């Protein structure tokens, strides 16, 4: 499969008051066109850092990030981001928030009525037509997140980046939005990268799950293919043996292999190397860091 988005041997080192902090070490990953990929890991493992790299909000210290074989330099509307805290502008209405994005992307070629129509279509897609003229503080958290999704999708991005989009929502709202996201991205054939810490969310939505080891110097631990047929139904899947197995795999990774961040740090420090799939094995890499592999 030809990679559409590629993260290639990326290190990210932040300068902090206490000296350099290595957030990511030798991370390589790829997303094919039309694929839904999740990144899962414990908090602080640099999941969001990977997403910010692709968004262009952050530059890699070494290595490079590519979209359609071109290096990503800075943010841009072809890589729309749905932020965890929705990031709607509180002084604009639902329409205004989406319109701002639509105008930026299509404003050069299209007339105002056409832009408004696009905006309304995006709002309708997430089922918020009735709240079109409300301000963010007048709608619920779930609705705000829908506006965030509508804003991102209205830009017709090449890649949709979602940073724990449903993290702040209650379980029922979350399930509802997951179903809707599945339907919409399925209809549009979107390429999606989603950061999450919710195992069910990852297995239900993804074609592949990238599981990250604990930070500092986090890297890709394992990659899990989710070959469940679409469209998926959470009720049916809940009793599907394959689903249960995949879910178990992710849980095992998170809770058995990478339960204790401190242990992981010690290992990296002792061996002076990190495991990462997809890179040619160096002599050090063969050190038995991950016996399971």
């Amino acid at each position: 499969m030809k990679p559409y988005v590629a993260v290639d041997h990326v290190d990210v080192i932040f300068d902090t008051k206490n000296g350099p902090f290595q957030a990511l070490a030798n991370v390589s990953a790829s997303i094919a066109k039309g694929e839904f990929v999740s990144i899962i890991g414990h908090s602080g493992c640099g999941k969001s850092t990977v997403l910010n790299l692709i968004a262009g909000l952050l530059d890699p210290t070494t290595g490079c990030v590519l979209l359609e074989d071109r290096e990503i330099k800075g943010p841009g509307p072809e890589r729309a981001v749905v932020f965890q805290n929705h990031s709607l502008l509180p002084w604009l209405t639902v329409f205004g928030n989406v319109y701002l994005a639509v105008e930026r992307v299509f404003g050069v070629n299209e007339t105002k009525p056409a832009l408004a129509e696009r905006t309304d279509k995006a709002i309708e897609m997430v089922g918020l037509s009735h709240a079109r003229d409300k301000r963010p503080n007048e709608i619920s958290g779930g609705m705000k997140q829908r506006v965030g999704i509508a804003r991102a999708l209205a830009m017709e991005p090449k890649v949709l980046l979602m940073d724990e989009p449903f993290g702040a929502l209650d379980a029922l709202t979350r399930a509802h939005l997951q179903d809707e996201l599945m339907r919409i991205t399925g209809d549009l054939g979107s390429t999606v990268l989603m950061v999450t810490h919710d195992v069910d969310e990852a297995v239900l939505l993804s074609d592949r799950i990238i599981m990250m080891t604990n930070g500092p110097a986090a890297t890709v631990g394992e990659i899990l293919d989710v070959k469940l047929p679409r469209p998926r139904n959470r009720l049916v899947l809940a009793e599907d043996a394959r689903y249960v197995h995949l879910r178990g795999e992710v849980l095992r990774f998170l809770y058995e292999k990478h339960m204790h961040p401190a242990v992981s740090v010690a290992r990296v420090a002792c061996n002076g190397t990190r495991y990462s799939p997809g890179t040619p094995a160096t002599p050090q890499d063969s050190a038995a860091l991950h016996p399971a592999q």
Partner: protein
Amino acid sequence: MNTEVVSINSMALPAGNSAGVNQLRQPVASRAAAHEANSPKIDTGSAKPNSGQRAGKLLNGAFSTVMPPVLGLLLLVVVWAFVAQTTEYLPSPAKTWLSALEIFGDPFYDRGLNDKGIGWQLWASLKRVFEGFGLAALIGIPLGFMVGRFDALQRMMNPVISLLRPVSPLAWLPIGLAVFKAADPSAIFVIFITSIWPMVINTSLGVASVPQDYLNVARVLKLSEWKVFTKILLPASLPYVVTGIKLALGIAWLVIVAAEMLTGGVGIGFWIWDEWNNLNMAHIIVAIFVVGTVGLILEQSMAWVANRFDYRKN
């Protein structure tokens, strides 16, 4: 002048704004409740059966709203009357009241340069305040935006602001007199130089504290600098800017009385000084109440404007 210096120092705090930011995160319902609690407790009388009881409650509510301030003012008058008894130079409240009636009986008389009604005196002072303050806003707010937006400029301006801000307003007066060689522009200059700092500081603080989330949205959308300004920076920092304007106006009104005492001419400050030379204490006390009332009106109208422009409150 000590009290003025203190008030100028304390203005660096974005008064009321840090609380405002927290308010942003409150659930809508509780904010609505808070809003209701803030609005006047006058019920327009929805159709309820027991109207007698309601009217009683209404009266009771009005009573408990009006009573404490009235008691406070009454206490002030009592203390004043008591102190007035002990010294022959301080006029009693009653005498001052009569004097006030006389002054306000003809506020706009004009008997030459040195004998004008209190209306003219007030008008002259307000005009100076708004000229100096307007000029300060015209320069201070854009400067604040740039200082807040560009880190290098912030570091450049910080020592200048820190050095000039604590200077007592009247220390600027000789500079003004030397440069402008006239009293009136000097007074306006003093207003300008003392009221510019809260606007620069608050505006830059407002711009610097625009949430990173909003700026990330701007970055992902690759908005032009103009769009970033009109769609994000301006609305996000407007509450801070208005707070700065409010503080500046308060300081300007505080300073004008002192400045006019020194520069002379028409104006409420010099009028007070003039009445002191006439040993007319009753007029001075009336002037104090007038200055206080005008300050209160300025403050309240700015608070209204501040509410109007706060995106968190509408």
